[in-house]
């Protein structure tokens, strides 16, 4: 999966777990928590949805790699098959 496709995957998940947020202008390089109202439980939801939808297991030590769309792209591109 390309990094751009990963962005879409992550945004689709965020759309479901943070339904009040406007996702039309999420900046890929900026930490998600700095531009969206997301807490630690929401991040656990992202991890759960990656597991459910894409069979990807993100170990706790790697949670910081989900900080921004760009870092998600770097980390997940090779883990999710297109």
């Amino acid at each position, binding site marked *: 999966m390309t990094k751009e496709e990963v962005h879409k995957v992550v945004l689709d998940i965020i759309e479901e777990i943070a339904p*009040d947020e406007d996702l039309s202008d999420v900046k890929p390089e900026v930490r998600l928590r700095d531009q969206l109202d997301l807490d630690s439980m929401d991040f656990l939801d992202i991890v759960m949805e990656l597991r459910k939808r894409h069979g990807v297991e993100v170990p706790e030590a790697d949670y910081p790699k989900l900080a921004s769309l760009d870092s998600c792209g770097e980390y997940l591109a090779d883990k999710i098959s297109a």
Partner: protein
Amino acid sequence: MKSDDQRIVITGIGLTAPNGNDLASYRTNLVEGRPRIGTLDLRYMGTAPAGICDFDPLRYQKKREIRVGTRAGSIAIYCAHEALADAAVDLAGRDTSRVGVYIGTTEHGNVETENEVYNLSQFDYDTRFWSHHHNPRTVANNPAGEITLNLDIHGPHYTIGAACAAGNAGMIQGAQMLQLGEVDLALAGGVSESIRSFGIFAGFRSQGALAEHEDPNRASRPFDRDRNGIVVSEGGAIYALERLSDARRRGARIHGELRGWALNSDASDYVLPNAERQVECMQAALRMAAMTPEDISIVSTHATATQQGDKQECRAVREVFGESPRTCVNNTKSYIGHAMGAAGSLELAGNLPAFVDGIVHPTINIEHLDPDCELPNLVINESRDGVEVSAILNSSFGMLGINSALIVTRPE
């Protein structure tokens, strides 16, 4: 007479019932004899009549709160906001560490656990798919805690588990905390999300206590000879309670005064009621209120339309109020089903406007009154108008033998 700082009054009412999302519409439907029971398609067991609320949770919650929280939490939040608005209390201007939240529940966590087990079944019971939301959703204080999160309240919050006596028990707890000076404002009452749990229905069915009728609006028939059990409902009623002295100081409108109450235990059976203890409970509430049976204008019964329960309660009511010619007896479950933890607080709310309009709403759906349930002033099928209503005794009883009686009097 107690001093005004020991007298507890209702200054706000917020509710959602299957047939009304505010007191005015709920009351109109009761007085005009309009029930609203629907049909639910329940996981594993098929359809059953149920009381379903249609309030808009987005009125006071964000979509994310609804996703993360529970139905009981949504009901509680809706009712709490409505109660504060009715009481004309703006929390922004108050020290919210002096606001307490006391919410009665019959049970909590069944719905969320059933959903989570079902979700897990979709993943071959791999517990890595068990949600991290499960624990905050199922802790017993959840519905009360969700109120504090939503309204930014910093006083104490907890639920009072008292089976189907919980609505009264929540109000009693709130009143006691005000008398103790622990808080200055109590949000107290009861909520229920029980219709989201197939297990509640299946349990009643296995017990032979789940109502069936081709017309769901006729399924809940307390006191009818052919009654065949409980219609499970969701709902909530939360009251803003204050000390009379505080309410007067701020010029609050007063709906009624919590004059007396009692809770006791049967210690006789897990599910079967005990008329003798119910009598003692009602008499204890009368003693606390320094009232006689003749002082009570309306007895709002608990009767759930089970064969045994209704008979036993009628026996108890007859023993306490049989010689009281002016005391009317009614029931609200025939309209809304059994709202479980919310039942007591919702049924009281449905009767409170009688202080103003002088109408005793009837219990409906009676085609053949059970001779064992005949009471001198049982109000059946038609409202009774022109009644001087000065005091209401609201009964709620629950499994494991918990009884409650709460007496509310007309504001002076």
